[in-house]
């Protein structure tokens, strides 16, 4: 049997299509993918609008209500969790970007023992499974007396962001011609000045993309929030999970909280979509 003929034959169906047929094929595939991802969100919204007794037959009931939203928004812990999640996400983003921008720049532009050591260090940390960080971090935050506080959650988030996003930032800076910085150094800037006044403004699309990814990542994060916080610093993802308790499962309230949590994430995504695409394209 002719081995080379096999892939050609399997792809034959697609290439046999006319250009218009291929476009239709792609459109259908895209719609199917969108439906696949949109359906759970649709179901979530539907559940959030059903009374507590109706969540198990969402597809049959006709009774809808917004009482679930009233109920969760009247709970102080949900409001505090919303505020905390927003603050933690925003602060983690700002602080992480400060470090990842300089770290990514160093990895992109400098060679030598220090960048190599830094590169190796974040590589090693990247190799550690995410879940393995949690228990040591619990003990560290206890020892440092920052358990169940902003810093207790911020510092681990920043550490993870540095490991994961320094690479992406390095990629952004690799895409920026270093000659621009050399020109700035000849034009009167120091090395730091060239970074700050020329490389950073040129990296704005990338930085914006990273800021959005960073914010969404922290906003949606569950494991650190679950282990490293308690009653003092409630976080939205954990509060949501607490609607499942020993007395039962309040899916309608959980769904309403989840829909509320979706709104800021949706705004950030819609605002930042074009930046993310532009930034990751560099």
């Amino acid at each position, binding site marked *: 049997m002719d081995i080379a003929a096999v892939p050609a034959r399997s792809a034959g169906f697609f290439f046999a299509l006319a250009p218009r047929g291929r476009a239709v094929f792609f459109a259908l595939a895209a719609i199917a993918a969108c439906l696949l991802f949109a359906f759970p969100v649709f179901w979530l919204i539907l559940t959030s609008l059903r009374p507590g007794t109706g969540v198990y037959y969402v597809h049959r009931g006709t009774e809808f209500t917004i009482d679930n939203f009233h109920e969760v928004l009247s709970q102080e812990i949900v409001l505090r969790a919303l505020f905390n999640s927003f603050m933690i996400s925003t602060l983690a983003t700002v602080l992480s970007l400060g470090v990842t921008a300089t770290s990514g720049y160093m990895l992109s532009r400098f060679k030598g023992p220090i960048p190599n050591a830094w590169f190796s260090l974040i590589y090693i940390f990247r190799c550690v499974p995410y879940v393995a960080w949690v228990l040591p971090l619990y003990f560290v935050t206890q020892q440092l007396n920052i358990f169940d506080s902003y810093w207790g959650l911020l510092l681990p988030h920043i550490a993870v962001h540095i490991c994961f996003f320094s690479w992406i930032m390095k990629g952004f800076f690799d895409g920026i*011609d270093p*000659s*621009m910085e*050399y*020109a*700035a*150094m*000849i*034009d*009167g*800037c*120091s090395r730091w*000045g060239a970074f700050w006044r*020329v490389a950073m*403004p*040129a990296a*704005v699309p990338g930085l914006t993309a990273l800021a959005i990814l960073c914010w969404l990542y922290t906003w949606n994060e569950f494991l650190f929030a679950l282990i490293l916080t308690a009653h003092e610093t409630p976080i939205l993802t954990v509060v949501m999970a607490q609607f499942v308790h020993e007395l039962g499962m309040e899916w309608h309230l959980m769904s309403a909280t989840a829909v509320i949590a979706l709104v800021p994430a949706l705004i950030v995504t819609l605002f930042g979509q074009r930046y993310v695409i532009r930034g990751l394209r560099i």
Partner: protein
Amino acid sequence: MADIVLSNVHKVYGHVVAVTDINLAIKDREFVVLVGPSGCGKSTTLRMIAGLEEISAGTIAIGGRVVNHLQPKDRDIAMVFQNYALYRHMSVRDNLAFGLRNRRVPAHEIAAAVSRAARILSIEPLLDRRPHQLSGGQQQRVALGRCIVRNPKVFLFDEPLSNLDAQLRAQMRLELKELRLRVPTTSIFVTHDQTEAMTLGDRIVVMKDGVVQQVGTPLELYRKPANRFVASFIGSPSMNFITVRVSADGEHFALACQGWRFRLPARRFPHLGSHVGRSICVGVRPQHVRLGAALNDDQIALNGAVTVTEQLGDEQLLAVRLGDGEIRIAGVDPDLSLPTGSQIEAAIATDHLHFFDELEQI
């Protein structure tokens, strides 16, 4: 205005030697071109002068002041990069003003300097545009403007025309020459294009493998290349080289290779005496080979079959089989019909012969 002196300059990256023992004195207002193939160390040399690379050994002095340990910003230089290196988040006006603002020049002086530079380079209508809205040629003019606006002691050019198409490159070469007349500043220009080197440079420095091969005016390099590398690098089409064996023949030296033998009078070429019984390389430029029979004793004759013709419109280039090698002939009448395989007779004036041993011109 300033002179530049490089003394025993070396550059080593780990175990790789990039530049070896460069000694070069560039006079005030002189335009010097560093030329050589990729990886010859010309850009590294320029970047060391700019302060963008550290010097492994030796000294660099600009205007009598050793600048080895000065930051680029303190050397009073300006540089044009191959890919223009314009600040893409700034307008053309801000690009031009950036260097002056860093030096805290008063705003009205900056405005005047920017206007003057824009006028010289005819980029006044572009001042409020962003770099990405400009063509390659316009971007290169802005990069030049960013240099002249500061009135530095030295201009450094790092292959500034390489990214332009052939037509625009020729135009920018002319503009650079005009700019030199208006802004006569000491300049170092790096290129791998020998045409740019020949047309722009007061003097040319030919480099290979981090070593300076020859320094001289364009005509010196063309007429008296120091070695076979310079001979092959300077001039277009490249010089023909034929390896021949030298033998004594009475009052003449006989030089022979397979399919070609000629004699040269010993009194006119005494330096060949020390190479009798050895092989040397004879070089002759394609422009110095003339179709037709040898007219006198000062010309040597050769015969061969045409293998390739290249029609350029104003001339033809021929490749002619000579023994087991090939010789190229330039400046042939474009209307002359010379089909492949046709036998031709050609002559070379002995004055135009160059002789090389393994290292240098004999």
